[in-house]
């Protein structure tokens, strides 16, 4: 699969299925509530949080406005440091580049750091089609890979699985038959399985959280140490980086290193941060490739409102506070980018027609905007994208008629009187049936406010 999308159902159709899974809702409710509290605690202890957010947003705005300059600057700096920089216009081009490098070394297996960007382009499937096995080394990604499942959360990809399910899966696949469901035992089973593969792998593949234009440095933040293994042990390292991941200067990292861990895992600092600038002889990989990926991002950049979605640093704070995500889980969004950020990113990367129900998958409650570390006004972008979706004829006619009625107080008043005498079965028909399935509907008042006013002050 070479796109962010998964499956063809609309959001309400997919949500219909997911909402029936009571266990999923309990798991998600518990998990998101826990992480919300952790985030709130570490954010509240900073008195300059709002200034940090403002700084993050300002840096990202500058990156988007001058992306052409920064990309070329990055290419020059990374090349000088010994890396080879490639440009990929789309998923197929990126996959071909990566597969070509792997084939050039005669390799049939690679180890991978958790990377949404490589999920977006469907890299693992593309490599498999060419006889290369890509092993996911992040624990949650490994679980999903072993089960043929896919991510439902940006940070916690297997948030929809509980530990009994994971124990059973590991017993069936890589673990001992008597494996317990203790987290330490589960992690140990994965560690044993992965360690040997880390040691024999000759090619590692990563994404990047940040790419520094000034120095050509790539940055990966992670929790498990698997990323450090993948980026240091193999002889060849290939990093697939979305062009929006650039930061102009090294010092800008100081802002994002405060914003990201707190927003993401609710930690002051994440356990492992790897930074590398080209190659150091005798230390780490002897060959380094950076694939700069567009895959629709230039199109997003063209939209002055929608481009804010490219500011995202993939922290997942918006998922954890979203009341819609909490009820449906990530799979309902049908995209590798779920939740509020996915609802504005996927329709832009894929084309609005391919994900037209996603901008509507929100009550516009604004909780996402409030926590976003780079102040992406997600509700505003959602409303903007709603304006671009194709509309059904009946709905369009009804909305135009309403606008026509509202444009003139006389017409509006007559329509109001008409609504009052409509029988309840008519008022409750059509789209209102979706309302009355679970809620009662108030009757139109026998006297409108304006009639009362008129009567009171003739």
């Amino acid at each position, binding site marked *: 699969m070479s796109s962010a999308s998964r499956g063809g159902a609309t959001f309400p159709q997919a949500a219909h299925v997911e909402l029936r899974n009571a266990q999923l809702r309990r798991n998600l409710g518990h998990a998101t509530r826990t992480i919300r509290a952790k985030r709130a605690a570490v954010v509240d202890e900073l008195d300059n949080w709002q200034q940090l957010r403002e700084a993050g947003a300002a840096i990202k705005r500058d990156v988007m406005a001058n992306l052409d300059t920064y990309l070329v600057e990055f290419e020059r700096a990374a090349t000088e440091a010994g890396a080879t920089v490639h440009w990929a216009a789309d998923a197929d081009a990126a996959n071909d580049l990566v597969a070509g490098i792997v084939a050039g070394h005669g390799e049939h297996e690679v180890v991978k750091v958790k990377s949404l960007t490589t999920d977006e382009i469907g890299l693992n499937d593309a490599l498999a089609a060419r006889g290369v096995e890509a092993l996911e080394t992040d624990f949650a990604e490994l679980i999903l890979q072993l089960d043929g499942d896919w991510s439902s959360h940006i940070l916690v990809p297997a948030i929809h699985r509980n530990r009994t399910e994971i124990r059973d899966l590991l017993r069936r696949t890589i673990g001992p038959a008597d494996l317990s469901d203790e987290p330490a035992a589960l992690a140990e089973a994965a560690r044993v399985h992965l360690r040997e593969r880390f040691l024999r792998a000759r090619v590692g593949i990563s994404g990047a959280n940040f790419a520094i234009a000034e120095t050509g440095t790539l940055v990966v933040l992670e929790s498990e140490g698997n990323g450090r293994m993948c980026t240091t042990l193999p002889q060849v390292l290939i990093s697939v980086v979305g062009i929006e991941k650039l930061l102009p200067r090294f010092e800008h990292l100081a802002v994002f290193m405060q914003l990201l861990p707190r927003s993401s895992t609710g930690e002051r600092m994440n356990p492992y941060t790897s930074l590398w600038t080209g190659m150091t002889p005798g230390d780490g990989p002897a060959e380094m490739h950076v694939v700069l990926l567009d895959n629709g991002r230039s199109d997003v950049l063209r939209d002055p409102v929608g481009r804010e979605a490219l500011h995202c640093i993939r922290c997942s704070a918006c998922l954890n506070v979203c009341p819609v995500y909490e009820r449906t889980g990530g799979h309902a969004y049908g995209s590798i980018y779920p939740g509020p950020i996915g609802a504005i990113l996927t329709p832009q990367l894929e084309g609005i027609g391919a994900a037209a129900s996603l901008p*509507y998958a929100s009550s516009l409650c604004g909780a996402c905007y409030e926590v976003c570390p780079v102040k992406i006004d997600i509700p505003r972008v959602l409303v903007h994208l709603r304006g671009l979706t194709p509309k059904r004829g009946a709905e369009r006619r009804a909305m135009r008629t309403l606008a026509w009625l509202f444009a003139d107080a006389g017409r509006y008043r007559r329509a109001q009187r008409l609504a009052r005498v409509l029988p309840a079965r008519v008022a409750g028909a059509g789209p209102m049936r979706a309302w009355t399935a679970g809620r009662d509907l108030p009757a139109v008042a026998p006297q*409108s406010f304006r009639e009362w006013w008129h009567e009171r002050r003739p």
Partner: protein
Amino acid sequence: MRISVFITCFNDTLFPQTGRAMVELLERLGHEVEFRPEQTCCGQMHMNSGYRDEGLELAARMRRVFDGAEVIVTPSASCAGHVLEHEPGLPVHELSQFLTGVLGVEEVGARYPARVAYHPTCHSLRALRVGDGPGRLLAAVEGLDLVEIDEADQCCGFGGTFAVKNAEVSMAMLDDKLSAIERSGAEVVTAVDNSCLMQIGGGLSRRGSPVSTLHLAEILAAT
């Protein structure tokens, strides 16, 4: 102060008692109230449903209707938010913000002996940032016993056309809100927007719950 009221089409048609209460309250506080009958809808529903041109045109119409108004007060936080976003400079205030922020009053001479829970609507909380103004107004009401709803800042699931386009998700959100309201021990739930109260009230009524809904203006007008 001469106050022009923006009732909203929703309240005008479905909840006129809220508009009447707001007028009575403002007059009781010694202000002159006017209602401009040319007002209809601010365009929020069109805007949020993806009909941008219609939404902007109706917002622009608001500016013409309220031309020259010294101050405009409305009992809807979401409509106030829409108008302020798209017609900045129009002196529109949500009622509780007008009372606590502009007039600087908390004690409005109301009496309402009941156990009341306040639901902070998303637009009042996060778009208008009304803060604890409604809570302070309610705390000053004689006989009123203010109770807390668990995770009060969670959305009720209304969201305009979201409630019908994604009715099942909306209901799942509402169910949790209704349970939290019932746990609070409240007899009455109040808010600064009747749209959210219609969602909550419609769900409570369907559950056969004894808890009822009432707009803040009606509690503050009660004596």
